[in-house]
């Protein structure tokens, strides 16, 4: 009789454990899905792509401690950014693109890739002049502050002249970002004179379109 009781208790215990694991697994599964679907913030230079980054980063904060400008923050819980991972809010403090890239050096997990040797090759994001309605250059005023702030002035941001239809005799001095040179450092967004920046650094996957493979531009060199 005692043996039967023991066996019953044993099975109940096992069932209880399985149920707890099942409930836990469900909770974690939902949470994992949530974490993976969160939009990518601006990551420090050399960061792996977002889906690899969030599973490789050990969340130790050593990149943040190495940053001389305190540009890097660690995500606090419940902020919509993968908890404990490093990110930048470039409107507040952009990446000043140190030549020796001190933030990548201490990374122990490889989430910031040490193959990143040249800061100019960083792809933290892509600046986009997103609000044409409020950008004063589009009103015909001279500004070009983002252009002047750009560390790759004339390459990552150029000024294009467009006829000013309102006056009929002037040009609009429009800043244009070129994705092959832009590192996403955010100095343009940081410098924008509006109350809310008209030029913003966006994660590359959000900023970039993709041309269908079947397009051929006859005037471009195909190589």
């Amino acid at each position, binding site marked *: 009789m005692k043996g039967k009781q023991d066996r019953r208790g044993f099975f109940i*215990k096992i069932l*209880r*454990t399985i149920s*707890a*694991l099942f409930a*836990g*697994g469900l909770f*974690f*599964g939902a*949470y*994992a*899905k949530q*974490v*993976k679907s969160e939009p990518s913030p601006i990551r420090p230079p050399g960061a792996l792509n977002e*889906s*690899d980054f*969030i*599973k*490789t980063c*050990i*969340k*130790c*904060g*050593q990149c*943040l*401690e190495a940053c001389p400008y305190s540009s890097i*923050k*660690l995500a*606090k*819980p*419940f*902020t919509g950014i*993968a*908890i*404990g991972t490093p990110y930048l809010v470039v409107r507040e403090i952009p990446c000043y693109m140190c030549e020796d890239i001190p933030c990548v050096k*201490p*990374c*122990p*997990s*490889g989430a910031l890739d040490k193959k990143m040797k040249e800061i100019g090759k960083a792809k933290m994001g892509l600046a986009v002049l997103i609000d044409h309605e409020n950008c004063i250059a589009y009103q015909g005023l001279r500004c070009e502050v983002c252009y002047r702030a750009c560390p790759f002035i004339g390459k990552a941001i150029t000024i294009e002249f467009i006829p000013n239809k309102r006056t009929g005799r002037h040009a609009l001095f429009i800043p244009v970002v070129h994705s092959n040179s832009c590192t996403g450092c955010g100095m343009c967004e940081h410098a924008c004179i509006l109350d809310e920046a008209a030029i913003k650094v966006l994660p590359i996957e959000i900023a970039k379109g993709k041309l269908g493979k079947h397009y051929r531009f006859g005037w471009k060199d195909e190589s």
Partner: protein
Amino acid sequence: MSRSFIYRHRFTIARRTTQIAIMALFYAGSHFGLKILTGNLSSSKILGLLPMADPVAVIQIFAATGSIAPDILIGAAIAVGFYLVVGGRSFCGWVCPVNIITDFARWLRNRLGLPDPYSISRMVRIWFFFAIIVLSALFGITIFEYVSPISMLHRGIIYGIGAGWIVLVALFLFDLFVIKDGWCGHLCPVGAFWSFVGRFSLIKIKLKGKYDPDKLKNAIKICPEPEVLSPSSFKNGRMISGNCINCGRCVQLSDKLGFSFKKSKNSEGGNL
């Protein structure tokens, strides 16, 4: 019996000092440029040279990505080596800041005489530990690192906690009202990992003389892992269970009980 308060709490005082000092050094490393300890308990550098890494986080990264960077692998190996000497779950008792919260809950629970009606197996943490490895591999994400109150707390202390305090209050209330020693004693997978290491570690509790249940009654009452003070946990007077957190509560309780910290099986010296 009329020893001083400090003597009767010497290990508790030493533990709190270490726990607080470690977090203070991390904080100073981050904020004042004092580079004795940089990083946090997930991964750190001592004096800018010696890397350490949380093996549980490293295992999850391996499960999620299928590869592992040499720095954190070495760091985890050094951490395991270190705790093989000082006792696996010494991490829990002497380093982990969550221990301060759960010990406070335990103290308050005893003071208020709260009942402990629910019991769950202390084996849950072992299952939980293996579950997070499987789930990390399954979902391709370091699953526990995203919910770990341990990381939330040590990161929070160093870099600002944000809304993470809610989780820690919940943990405190859980330990206080729901299950006694609920987190550290039953659920925490990090503790489970260190208990594997603790089985083989050098510095352990030793019991001099015969095991006498009547004499040890009070020690068992204050032990956060009471099972480690059962007769089966001792072999020739030496603790063989890995679950002991080396907190020294039983040692400081009374000199007459015959508990002490000893290193290795045969050595008589090494009294801590």
